[in-house]
């Protein structure tokens, strides 16, 4: 299968604000240290790592919310690593990002209907109302939600609206950054099942950033393990869980508390 993303020697540095002098510029801190990987079309790539591993920075570089210092990000054949905002605009319709709580970053005075319609209008789609309705159907929310406000929704419902907003413009790729971490297990199970269905039905390619390996195991076909800005393991999910190779992957796996009092938990 063709690759949707091909990433070569991706490096990214950000200003280290903790070491910023009183006058002058902050020193640069290298967050991503030369990453190479690809994501086949229609697959689900899990990206896992601890805090400070660079997983969110990698996600932001992939959808070009950040510009890498060097290296290539080829999206469907085109290197987008250093495109300008204007050059990126037509591409923005093709990749979407969903955050941990997407609705907290959106205008609380807008209804769900307006929020889902916003990116559709921005990208000049016709039949906006029809598309908004179908997006709600896809995520299993009744049309009566169109007139609700974000604060009236539960965490799981808000996350569904976030997903509806992302899929309404029919993107090729969705980056989901810790989208189930704030949810109760029941809502988490609902959102994960929904993502599984959407990937199948819409032929989406998905990158799923999470610190939870149990969630990754369930959802992803491949897993990328990041540790301090480097890829320490990139393998097919079943193989990785059967025999983790990198010491850090083994440490991560053995640290997970399984709901089982008899699990040895050294």
């Amino acid at each position, binding site marked *: 299968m063709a690759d949707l993303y091909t990433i070569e020697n991706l490096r990214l540095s950000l200003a280290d604000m903790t070491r910023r002098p009183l006058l002058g510029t902050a020193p640069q801190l290298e967050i991503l240290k030369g990453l190479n990987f690809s994501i086949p079309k229609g697959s689900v790539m899990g990206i896992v790592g601890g805090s400070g591993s660079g997983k969110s920075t990698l996600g932001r570089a992939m959808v070009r919310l950040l510009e890498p210092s060097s290296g290539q990000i080829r999206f469907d054949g085109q290197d987008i690593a250093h495109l300008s905002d204007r050059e990126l605009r037509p591409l923005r319709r093709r990749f979407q990002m969903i955050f941990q709580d997407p609705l907290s970053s959106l205008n609380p005075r807008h209804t769900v209907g307006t929020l889902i319609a916003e990116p559709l209008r921005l990208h000049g789609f016709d039949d906006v109302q029809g598309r908004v309705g179908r997006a709600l159907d896809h995520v299993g929310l009744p049309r009566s939600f169109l007139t609700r406000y974000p604060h009236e929704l539960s965490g799981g419902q808000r996350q569904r609206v976030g997903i509806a907003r992302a899929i309404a413009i029919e993107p090729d790729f969705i980056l989901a950054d810790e989208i189930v971490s704030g949810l*109760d*297990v029941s809502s988490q199970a*609902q959102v994960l099942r929904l993502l599984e269905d959407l990937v199948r039905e819409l032929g989406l390619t998905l990158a799923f950033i999470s610190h939870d390996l149990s969630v990754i195991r369930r959802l992803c076909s491949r897993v990328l393990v990041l540790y301090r800005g480097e890829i320490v393991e990139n393998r097919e999910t079943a193989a990785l869980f059967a025999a983790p190779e990198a010491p850090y992957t083994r440490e991560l796996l053995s640290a997970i*508390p399984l709901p089982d009092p008899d699990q040895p938990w050294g």
Partner: protein
Amino acid sequence: MSFLEIRNLTATLSNGMPILRDVSLSVAAAEVRGLVGESGAGKSMIGKAILGILPRSVRITRGEIRLDGTDLLALPPAERRRRIGQSCALIPQDPLTALNPSRRVGPQITDRLVDILGWTRSNAEARARDLLAEVQIPEPERVMRSYPHELSGGMRQRILIASAFAAEPKLIVADEPTTALDVTVQKQILKLIAGMQARHGTALLFVTHDLGVVSKVCQRLSVLYAGMVVEDTDVRGFFSAPDHPYSRALLAATPVYTDPEASLTPVPEAVITAVRAEVAAADRRAGRG
């Protein structure tokens, strides 16, 4: 007899809506009880009720909170605060907001000992150093002079654990103490809390939404739904054969990497309907709302 005995604790919001419904549970010395449930089930409220830090909008309408046999709710406010200050402590969820960012760490541990328990400053400092060593903080002297922002999340949580144990409380309420931490740090912190609790013989009430964590640190647990205890059992029994349908549904919704083919079922509508009916029936019997 258990150190903490809660009987029929009922609390409502100012609009009369019940948020704790006849909650009864006990924690013995050296015992760890987990309080689990989804968000809004009232698990943090129980900890706050014990510590006397409920939001103003919440009123306790009925029940007893007995510490070592004495009902806190029957005491005058000043006496109640003194009892709580002497025998209880909290390990909070977010170590950053729980520490004052503009003060050094040392005084934030020792203030409580000096102001509430009347220790001398030098005794309190010696105690803080010992406790920081016990929670495996290297160079306790240097850390006591540090500001919170100079320390990692794991370090800050260790400091709050040291602070909680400093006055040898009989009961500690831990409110989601590892939710904000990486899984590898979480493991260290949980082992640390469990080790300290066992060594000091403290009764521990452990509030969490994570059944995996419960299976590692608790001996008993209470499952809450809508402020009502739907199951009170020992951990081993719970994980081999949970009694209540809602408990079984919670377990079935929890993903485990060792069993990827498990169905990962959201709590079914039928289970929610049934447990809501239980809550409504209990409300009718008690003449609530």
